[in-house]
């Protein structure tokens, strides 16, 4: 009852009679970062992080007897307050609150509405100040009106230097505050654990594959790149990242106070000398925004390829600094071995793995629709390996990007950068390494034969519709020309239309994923030809004239 009365009298947002206990952050801190559920394999942008994190921290709180409001300060800006879990509090937790009403110029005016303030006018030339009592008549949203003994005026519409000096003390906080209202039977000091989900975090895996000069093996290294886009630093935190796609509902819309400024909203201010405004039409620049990647390299390699070069060079590291993997339900948890400080707006990299001499198979390939004529196109180069111990791998590979480099004497060249999906143990891994102008693929349909079949009159529509069908027999040829000195392995995958059957081919194809796959070896400075015959039934409906 004591509390209810106090609340009715006061304007304090919560629990006027409840003792207010502010808790600073201290003690153990743990941050687990989850990637954006639907993130493409793009790079990480601190201003647009789609992932989130679970933050757990321990704080020591002295709680007085009776009702008190425990305020947790220094939580992440992106806190999803509905996810907050507070454990270790004595007695009853009456409620948990997050107050987003913040102290801002507009909020100060709103809190002073109808009350007395001091209007301060300063002479711009002499600096002399005049102060006179005033009363605020409207809140800041539509411009501020005030009343003095002279009458009613609008703030800052006269061209004079004028402002308010506020007397009222408001209870508004500088940042959104998370608090718990508890009722403790005795005064006590307890250790409280607070954990919550917060957005503004993300992580990705950055793989660097270095292909050996003979293209038969590669060294695979990877970094976990994690980012904190929040304005809060997490000092000496136990840091983990979780791989795997998990559901995260984005419907959590929290009230957000943008903080209103005090705007002078005056009457129309047009004058007789205003120029007529011309609409500005934005024009597309043919070169895009000027690209000022002022990264300087000691040695500049110019490749005739359209990709930006990111300095992700392989760095040899000792095994002790790798992250430690463990199973978490159906997910993979990677622990950063030592406590690390995750400062505000920071991107950090920790070593995920280092594997040497991973056997790979380099092949050239094309993926074509059956019986389509295709003019000469460059074949795609792909590295294939298997994620098992025999291939010096055999560990879960979280999704990310793979940059493949080729070594040339003492320098390395970027071949390609491609996305990689989540790869479990014992799965095949294919990494695209660009296309090759030296290996050209073309396809042509050589012949088409149509043999009509007996027409069918459907029973219900007899005499109205007639279905006539024909068997269509196509022969197509695919040519592969190899201009390089060495022989290459080539794989052609055909996409057959529904109902189309392959009835003959030279060489004989294999079947993979329900699609024909041709494997041929193309000799150095030579060609190879794949010829296949397919058949499908074409159906045509015709109206029978009555």
């Amino acid at each position: 009852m004591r509390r209810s009365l106090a609340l009715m009298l006061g304007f304090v947002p919560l629990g006027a009679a409840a003792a207010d206990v502010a808790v600073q952050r201290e003690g153990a801190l743990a941050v687990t970062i989850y990637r954006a559920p639907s993130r493409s394999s793009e790079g990480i942008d601190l201003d647009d992080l789609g992932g989130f994190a679970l933050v757990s921290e321990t704080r020591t709180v002295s709680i007085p007897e009776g009702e008190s409001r425990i305020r947790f300060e220094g939580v992440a800006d992106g806190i999803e307050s509905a996810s907050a879990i507070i454990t270790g509090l004595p007695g009853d937790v009456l409620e948990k609150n997050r107050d987003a009403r913040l102290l801002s110029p507009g909020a100060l005016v709103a809190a002073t509405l109808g009350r007395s303030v001091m209007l301060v006018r300063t002479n711009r030339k002499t600096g002399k100040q005049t102060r006179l009592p005033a009363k605020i008549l409207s809140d800041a949203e539509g411009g501020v009106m005030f009343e003095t003994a002279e009458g009613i005026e609008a703030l800052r519409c006269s061209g004079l230097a004028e402002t308010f000096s506020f007397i009222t003390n408001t209870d508004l906080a500088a940042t959104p505050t998370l608090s718990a209202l508890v009722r403790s039977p005795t005064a006590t000091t307890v250790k409280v654990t607070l954990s919550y989900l917060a957005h503004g975090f993300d992580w990705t895996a950055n793989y660097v594959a270095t292909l050996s000069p003979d293209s038969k093996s590669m060294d695979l290294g990877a970094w976990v790149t994690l980012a904190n886009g929040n304005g809060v630093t997490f000092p000496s935190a136990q840091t983990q990242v979780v791989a795997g796609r998990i559901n995260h509902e984005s419907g959590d819309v929290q009230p957000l106070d943008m903080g209103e400024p005090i705007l002078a909203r005056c009457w129309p201010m047009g004058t007789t000398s205003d120029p007529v405004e011309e609409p500005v039409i934005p024009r597309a620049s043919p070169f895009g925004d000027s690209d000022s990647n002022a990264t300087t390299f000691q040695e500049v390699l110019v490749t005739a390829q359209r990709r930006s070069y990111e300095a992700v060079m392989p760095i040899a590291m000792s095994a002790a600094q790798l992250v430690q993997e463990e199973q978490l339900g159906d997910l993979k948890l990677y622990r950063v071995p030592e406590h690390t400080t995750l400062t505000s707006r920071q991107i950090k990299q920790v070593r995920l793995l280092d594997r040497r001499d991973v056997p790979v198979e380099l092949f050239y390939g094309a993926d074509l629709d059956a019986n389509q004529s295709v003019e000469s196109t460059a074949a795609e180069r792909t590295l294939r390996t298997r994620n098992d111990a025999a291939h010096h791998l055999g560990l879960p590979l979280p999704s990310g990007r793979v940059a493949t480099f080729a070594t040339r004497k003492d320098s390395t060249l970027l071949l390609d950068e491609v996305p990689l999906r989540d790869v479990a143990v014992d799965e095949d891994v294919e990494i695209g390494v660009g296309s090759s102008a030296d290996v050209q693929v073309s396809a042509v349909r050589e012949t088409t034969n149509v043999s009509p079949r007996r027409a069918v009159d459907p029973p219900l529509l007899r005499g109205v519709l007639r279905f006539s069908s024909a068997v269509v027999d196509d022969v197509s040829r695919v040519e592969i020309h190899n201009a390089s000195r060495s022989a290459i392995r080539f794989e052609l995958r055909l996409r057959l239309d529904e109902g189309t059957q392959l009835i003959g081919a030279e060489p004989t194809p294999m079947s993979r994923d329900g699609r024909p796959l041709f494997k041929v070896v193309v000799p150095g400075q030579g060609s190879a030809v794949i010829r296949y015959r397919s058949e499908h039934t074409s159906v045509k409906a015709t109206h029978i004239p009555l």
Partner: protein
Amino acid sequence: MTIVRVTPGTGAETREKALVLATNGGVVLKIGERIEVLRDDGLPVRVIFDKVPDNLRARPTLSVTVNSAHGGTRPATLSYLTPGLGWRADYVALFSEADSKIDVQGWVTLTNSSGTTYDDAKTLLVAGSPSNLSGNNSWAVRRPRPTLAEAGTESGTRERLGDFYLYPITERTTIANLQTKQVSFLDVHGVPAEHGYEYRNVWLGTSETPQSAKSVYRFSTSAKAGLGDQLPAGILRFYMRDKRGDPQFIGENQIDHTPMGSIISLSTGDAFDVKVQPTVLKRTSLGDFAWRTEMRYSLTNALPKSVQVAVLQGGLWGDTTISAESQKSTRRSADVAEWLVTVPANGKIDLTATFMTRY
């Protein structure tokens, strides 16, 4: 109105009465016989109004006009509907893998972005979705995967109003503007929960890379071996302890208003190690508009224990039949066939089925 010209530098003031002729683009004034544009020269001019018109208020105001026989003070009650206030439930479930049980806490999450603080209010929350033409019903979004596996038929002890459940907040509370408030309403421990995997394939769905199966948790809201309560719509977050014993978040999902005694089946996300690769092996025209479709589902499990995966093939329209299959299926509905496939530890198994369709 009165205008006060202030001489820059000296601060000397000259007062004049002015009549506003127009306010289009700029303010045109009539001062005596002269016509002027307000502050056309940019010099300071104060504009002083004598009074605020009666119909202008500091804040949006609702007023009533009454005709009373006698004056006096009397209590009045004002009731109104307002948008900007809303609530949903937030659940925290801690899953224990060792004994396959969950502890669930439920919180009512109340948000106020109505622009007003409600001091010391008696608060009652209504679960259900009363139609309100002005508000949009955010829970009416169609879920991609149903979460309610079996609707319950039990009644609890919660207060009801018509078909809505009421959740009163026991103590008077202040709902501040822009506040999110949480009040506990459910706390149960040791409820049995099953964990499994599910993969749904669309008709003729074929993939060149293995696709993760969904990780699914299933539990009851019954009074016996369940949560024993109606669940208002909201988000259920799953946690699990890592090897050091710290709870870690493993995914969440939305649940709809759920009656007591129901079975809930929630997907928390994709399984990293349990995957299914569906492949259309062959599709043959049998003439007379009939087709034979041979499907293969390759299931892989990189976990060191065997798992059971429910493979669902949807889109079996019309009188589609399964003429051959490597293990017996059940029909969840005419459109959906289901196989419960056990995949051995670190193993692989192929499920094949042949469908006969007509169109």
